[in-house]
């Protein structure tokens, strides 16, 4: 494990969870597993931190929960996206993309671009 892990940014965890729930309902453990897989384990998320985030989002009506049976036949609490959650995800990911693009522009700007300033 020589690879450097990145801490998940405050506020982006919600967006990632919404993303994870795009296609299907999932329980907490599988959300985390999916996120770890999708980031090749480069993102550090504390397991315990996931649940308050999930419950807050449920309270905000972004996701809804139901009890069901897990793949290994246990009772598990599954979350799915609500219509509102889907809208939220769209808005979040748009603003994220623009944010990354803008910051990226600045960080990769060459000296020549700045020289045109009188």
């Amino acid at each position, binding site marked *: 494990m020589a690879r450097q892990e990145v801490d998940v940014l405050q506020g982006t965890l919600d967006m990632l969870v919404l993303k994870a729930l795009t296609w299907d309902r999932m*329980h*907490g*453990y599988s959300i985390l597993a999916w996120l770890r897989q999708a980031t090749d384990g480069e993102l550090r998320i*504390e*397991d*315990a*931190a996931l*649940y*308050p985030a999930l*419950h*807050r989002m*449920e*309270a905000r009506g972004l996701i809804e929960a*139901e*009890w069901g049976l*897990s793949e*290994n036949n*246990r*009772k*598990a*609490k599954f979350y799915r996206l609500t219509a509102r959650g889907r809208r939220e995800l769209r808005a979040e990911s748009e603003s994220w993309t623009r944010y990354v693009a803008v910051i990226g522009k600045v960080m990769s700007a060459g000296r020549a671009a700045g020289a045109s300033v009188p």
Partner: protein
Amino acid sequence: MIDPSSDESAGRGVPVWRRYLRLRGGDVRADVADELEFHIEMIAERLIGQGMAPDQARARAREEFGDFERARSLCEGIGAEMARRHEWAELLDSLAKDARLALRSLRRAPGFAATIVITLALGIGASTAIFSIVRGVLLRPLPFAEPDRLVRLWEVSPRGDDHNVVSMGNYVSWRDRAKTFSAMGAHSGSFSVTLVEAGEPTRITTADLTPSVMQVLRARAALGRTFVADDDKGDGRAVVLSHALWVRRFGADPGVVGRRLVIDDAPYTVLGVMPAAFEFPSAGVDIWRPVTADHIDPNERRSHNWYVVARLAPGATLAAASAEMRAISGALAREFPQYMTGFGTNVVGMADDMVASVRPLLLILLSGATLLLVVACANIANLLLARAVGRRREMAVRGALGAGRWRLTRQLLTESVVIASVGGLLGVAVAALLTRALTMLAPDDIPRLSAVRVDGAVLAYALATTLASGLLFGCVPVVRILRSGRRRGESLHLALRVSGDRGGSARHVGVRSVLLVGELAVSLILLSGAGLLLRSAHRLASIDYGYRPAGLVAASFDLPRARYDGNDRHVAFYDQLMAGARELPHVTGVAGTTEEIGSSSSMTFSFAIEGKPSRNASGREDPQPLRVVAGDYFRVMGIPVHRGRPFTPADRADAPPVAIVNESLARLLWPGADPVGSRVSFVGPSGPWLQVVGVVGDTRSNAADAAPVPALFVPFAQKRWPWMTWMTLVMRTDAMASVNTLGSGLRGLVRQVDARLPVQDVSPVPDRYRESVGRRRFATVLTGAFAALALLLGVVGMYGVVSYGVVQRRREFGIRLALGARASQVTGVVVREALALAGIALVVGLAAALGSTRVLAGLLYEVSPRDPITFAAVAVLVAVVAMAAAWVPARRATRIDPAMTIRDA
């Protein structure tokens, strides 16, 4: 509300998923624990899959998971909050639904809804209006700093009057000796003076006070300044204006401070203006003048005419102050035995002192209004019950469709509260109007009426009565419907099949009858009260005043001492005035008196009787009311002269001094003997003497309801008190006289003599008694109105119950008629049953009324609170009215078509 910490459902062995199936709001705590534990299990399984031993894997999983307790408490917090919000939303949602349902069903029955809403609006309106007066007069704190530390100090006279006004000497002694007060002040009662402004004289009301009164009250001026301690060293030519006078006479001019005014012909300087809320010692005082040190005679212990206020020192209690004052008055009695023997002191909280006399009146009115509200509620409950019958099927259907008992109850109660709210809203409007009307109708001697308004507390009261009545009358149909549901085993088919209302109707009528009996009984209490007050009013109207007030017109005068010094000038002025007044059209006789007719205040003097040893140290009798009269007083007033002679024009200042006594005084001081010929002296047992020349009849000239008091009369022409400058002119008039023309005639006369002298208060003498009967009239009018409304509601209730009974029994009546019963027999059955109910109500109501009318005793005049005539009349009235209310629906029973009703069933 859901309790998140409850493990109850888990304890009952309900599976987790069942709990969650109960649409949300499950056991938050258990759910969070389950969810988190599942996650840890999954980690552990992964680790075991990687070859770790199970125990080790579990421990490792917990470690890897992170801060379990923190996650749990955060999630529980969020969950609990969600559950709470959800509960509320659901409750509000269903309440709104119930309210809509209620409004819809009321719209379907507009007449029914209007009856209930109007009944309730009157009940709530009346009780709220009375409460607003109770609140303003009795409950609102006085508008001074720390008002509960303010006290009034009175002398207790040897005769036991515990509100005796104080002598200046006593005030000074109290002030100098008492330690339990941080400040003490003395003031006069309010009286009128003449303010001349821009050449125009007006009468205004003043109260003279020691500057320390302002320190006692901690009063601050709104403009300029009020009196400070040093003001008692000045010449006293300073005034502080009331806010009202400042606005009325000076157009709220801020430059009024420092202005010079002429009051009673003397110049004064305006020091400042008080805030609008400042009322002292009573409402309507226009200016305050300082009592300066020159006017404070520490040795004056004979003349008692000052009022004393004080502020309790920090830490001092009323009891401590009373104890100290007792010790001080004991010491004073030893030091000044000739003046102070038998005198005590009385220390009372200022607010208590102010309102103590009206508290019973207001509480009686509040109880009356509350009783009316109770009657209104009973009536509404009865109406709702009648409707509940029609809705039994609706309820059964809703019950069968899964609405629980609690759900149905809530719906019914919501309906009642919705009805109550509409009624309450209207009631507040009624209360606002009534409050204004009542403060105008209220007698002037009720203190603090200016503090009466519809404020937050009053609205809170209206809201509370609204909810209480809604729940009160709402409970009756709820109990009724729930009970009927249980008795029928909640069987839907039965409720649906039964088209009429047979089963259970007997009991139903029972509940309604009980309500009706209660309603009539309470009305009876109100009617008895109103009846007693009316009878007492009648007694007062036919009272024997001892003279003939009808046809007498009075006008008041007061001569400024600056221009009229000396008795000769007073006598000359009033002689000239009376001579002129005799020439006015429609005037048949003119006289004058120093007493204030219709007012309970009186001037009392003590005097010695020649040859009669007095038990008092001063050698004089206890003080008795003195009336100084002018002109042909006894003839003009219509007071009979029993013995001796009346005053004549020959009883001049230089003639031998004479006096006349009335019957009461003769009985009191000359028991069994004829006073005519004996001599009295205002100075002492060695004269100078006044010869008693006559005995006249007693009069009730103080107050209509007060027993005649003893009185000594002396002729104005022989008066020896130069400060006695005032006189009430009384004119006997014929039937054609008008008070207005008489007033302008008098003003014309006065203008010829003294243009700067105002004529006050020209009014028929009978009007001057208004105040003394004002409280009674107020109580009579209001109680009468409450009682009339209650009786009206009782009629409606009786009509409703009997009509309902007739409808219930139309089959029975139909059969009876078919079998040959005469119409009168059927009517008789119905009316007899109604009368039986009324009879029970009479017994219960009369018993309750007999027990409760005692509270009216203070307001009754020569009528016992258990006056049998009143109670008999009220009982007959209720019986007759109840019978009439039953008669109409009873007649309807005879028009039932037997064939129709039998076929219908």
